[in-house]
């Protein structure tokens, strides 16, 4: 009977084209507004590494203490005033302790790449200095080759992993494993070429959380980068630092981070304990003059803590869904009017053998069909809304403002379900009509 009811719905739409148009417009505008904000919200709140986000953790430690930052309170960026990065001292100490099965310290940098083809000009590429575990821990796929090894980390081997895009640029997409890339004037041997990989949001580098243009193109051993004095992109210091590379490494400036993989609850507890003990040891040694303050957060907790989804966006989603409710309320009123105007037909159908449930089903299918049409119009409005958002925020927001298959499915589901829900009362009213009364008064 579903197909029959669906065809009846289409006939009903054709018969009341203006009323139907008004209902579809009301639903479409509501869906458009809510889906625009929801799409942005979903992109922001997406799990960047599904299946592993609960096992990947980043540690924090309070090396600043209860200092008065004056107007520079944004330096912390967090509610609990814990620094969001680590000092080199702490990162190296965590790596040496090897308290997790997999661990990688890292920092963002830039390298000057000199192509072998002399016709190409040198260019700067975003790079990441890290450890071999980075690739296994974050499930990085490889097109050619493999990551360097832990022995290479220890040996400070001049090796490099490059992205597919850089490989296309430097080697025309060929298998470049074993070939040499000149960076900052030094030769590096390519050991691996990454396949497409772009977790969104980029949880380990929230300064470029959604910016596709800011993605790292080169990965090199952390130990080698330190040895070659390759500077970090970001540096946050409370006090002035003495001159020279060694002074920076020994300073309390924060510019590195560490990610660890902790597969079990017991390993998480053990790592927390290690962090606390480490903090206590630092206080006992006289480095910290305040109570130990450490934290360990997994990917989801880290994204929430860093407020990747801002409160404004969350509020906007709520407001837009309230707007959708208003639109649906309008559609409900129009549906009620439409169904009530058709009570004569309903009575005839009842006289011909339709039971109340059949009438209810017919009206609900009609509501659902209306929702489906509303979804199509709503998707148009959503694309318009996302286009406006891209115009406002620029191309760097492309990840946030693009509509994928999941978003389209959500839009259709939300539209159909909410319209059917709104149509339940009018449908119920129609199904409860007393056919005898209607037929007597005709």
């Amino acid at each position, binding site marked *: *009977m579903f197909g*029959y009811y669906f065809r*009846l719905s289409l*006939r*009903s739409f*054709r*018969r009341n084209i203006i009323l139907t148009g008004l209902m579809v417009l009301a639903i479409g505008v509501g869906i458009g507004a809510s889906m625009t904000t929801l799409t942005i919200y979903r992109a922001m709140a997406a799990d960047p590494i599904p299946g592993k986000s609960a096992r990947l953790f980043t540690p924090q430690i309070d090396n600043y203490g209860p200092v008065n930052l004056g107007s520079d309170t944004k330096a912390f960026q967090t509610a609990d005033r814990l620094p969001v990065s680590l000092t080199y001292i702490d990162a190296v100490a965590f790596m040496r302790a090897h308290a997790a099965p997999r661990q990688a310290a890292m920092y963002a940098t830039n390298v000057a790449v000199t192509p072998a083809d002399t016709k190409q000009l040198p260019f700067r590429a975003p790079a990441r200095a890290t450890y071999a575990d980075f690739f296994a821990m974050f499930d990085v796929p490889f097109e050619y080759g493999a990551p360097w090894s832990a022995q290479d980390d220890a040996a400070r081997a001049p090796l490099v992993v490059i992205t597919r895009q850089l490989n296309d640029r430097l080697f025309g997409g060929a298998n470049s494993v074993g070939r040499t890339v000149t960076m900052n004037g030094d030769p590096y041997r390519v050991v691996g070429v990454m396949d497409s990989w772009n977790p969104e949001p980029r949880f380990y580098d929230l300064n470029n959380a959604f910016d596709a243009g800011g993605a790292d193109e080169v990965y090199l051993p952390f130990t080698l980068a330190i040895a070659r004095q390759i500077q970090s992109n970001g540096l946050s210091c409370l006090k002035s630092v003495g001159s020279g590379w060694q002074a920076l490494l020994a300073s309390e400036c924060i510019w590195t981070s560490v990610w660890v993989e902790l597969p079990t609850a017991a390993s998480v507890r053990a790592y927390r304990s290690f962090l606390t003990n480490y903090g206590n040891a630092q206080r006992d040694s006289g480095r910290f003059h305040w109570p130990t303050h450490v934290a360990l957060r997994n990917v989801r907790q880290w994204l929430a803590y860093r407020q990747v989804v801002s409160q404004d966006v969350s509020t906007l989603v709520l407001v837009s869904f309230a707007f959708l409710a208003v639109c649906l309320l309008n559609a409900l009123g129009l549906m009620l009017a439409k169904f009530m105007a058709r009570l*004569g*037909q309903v009575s*005839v*159908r*009842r*006289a*011909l*053998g*339709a*039971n*109340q*449930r*059949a009438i209810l089903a017919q009206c609900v299918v009609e509501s659902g069909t209306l929702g489906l049409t509303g979804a199509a119009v709503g998707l148009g409005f959503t694309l318009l809304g996302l286009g406006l958002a891209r115009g406002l925020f620029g191309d760097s927001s492309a990840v946030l403002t693009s509509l994928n298959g999941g978003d389209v499915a959500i839009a259709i589901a939300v539209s159909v379900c909410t319209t059917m829900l709104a149509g339940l009362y009018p449908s119920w009213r129609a199904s409860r009509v*007393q*056919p*005898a009364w209607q*037929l*007597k008064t*005709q």
Partner: protein
Amino acid sequence: MLTMKNLSKVYRTDVLETHALREFTVEVREGEFVAVTGPSGSGKTTFLTIAGLLEEFTSGEYWLDGVDTRGLNDRQRSRLRNEKIGFVFQSFNLIPDLNVYDNIDVPLRYRGLRGAERRRLIQEVLQRVGLSSRVRHYPSEMSGGQQQRAAIARALVGRPRLLLADEPTGNLDTQMARGVMELLEELHRGGATIVMVTHDPELAARAQRQVHIMDGRIVELEAEPVLVGQGSVEGLRRAFGRSA
């Protein structure tokens, strides 16, 4: 086929109680053509809607084709209505969005018949009422007589045991009314059980039996059919309670 015993129907509001049918007892046998007459407000249509299971009664008994209809739920009543009863209304009540074919298809849809079976039944009934050439026409594209023929086809397509007609010629001119009446008579000759509500004494006289309702009660039953042209006009006037 249809038996009502001491049936009553009371409409109640906060301040008013209206007895539409009182101690109503009637029996319609299989194959009968019964005309139900009576003045406006006498309870004719209430009788018809109760007979058609569109309305529940307050007390008494109603047996339809051997089934006690008391206590049936909506689904059971709808199924019984769909399988055993065909309705013909004064204002045709064709669904304007649907063409003739689809209008006739409606009761078969609710019976859950397969497409081929529905097509066969619809073709048969269209031939029977002489509307085979109007299959794709919409109600608004047909005359009143054709619309009523389509409505009768819709009532008959499911091969009901009982045809209930409420003023089937009330909205038709004389010529069209004659055509529709002849069709009903032909159906009766073919074995159909018909109960027809009418104001028209001439049409009532063409039925096999007449039941006259006054103030919700049956006041007179004529056992013998009175054929127009053969019975006395004065007798008909008496039967319908009108002065000469």
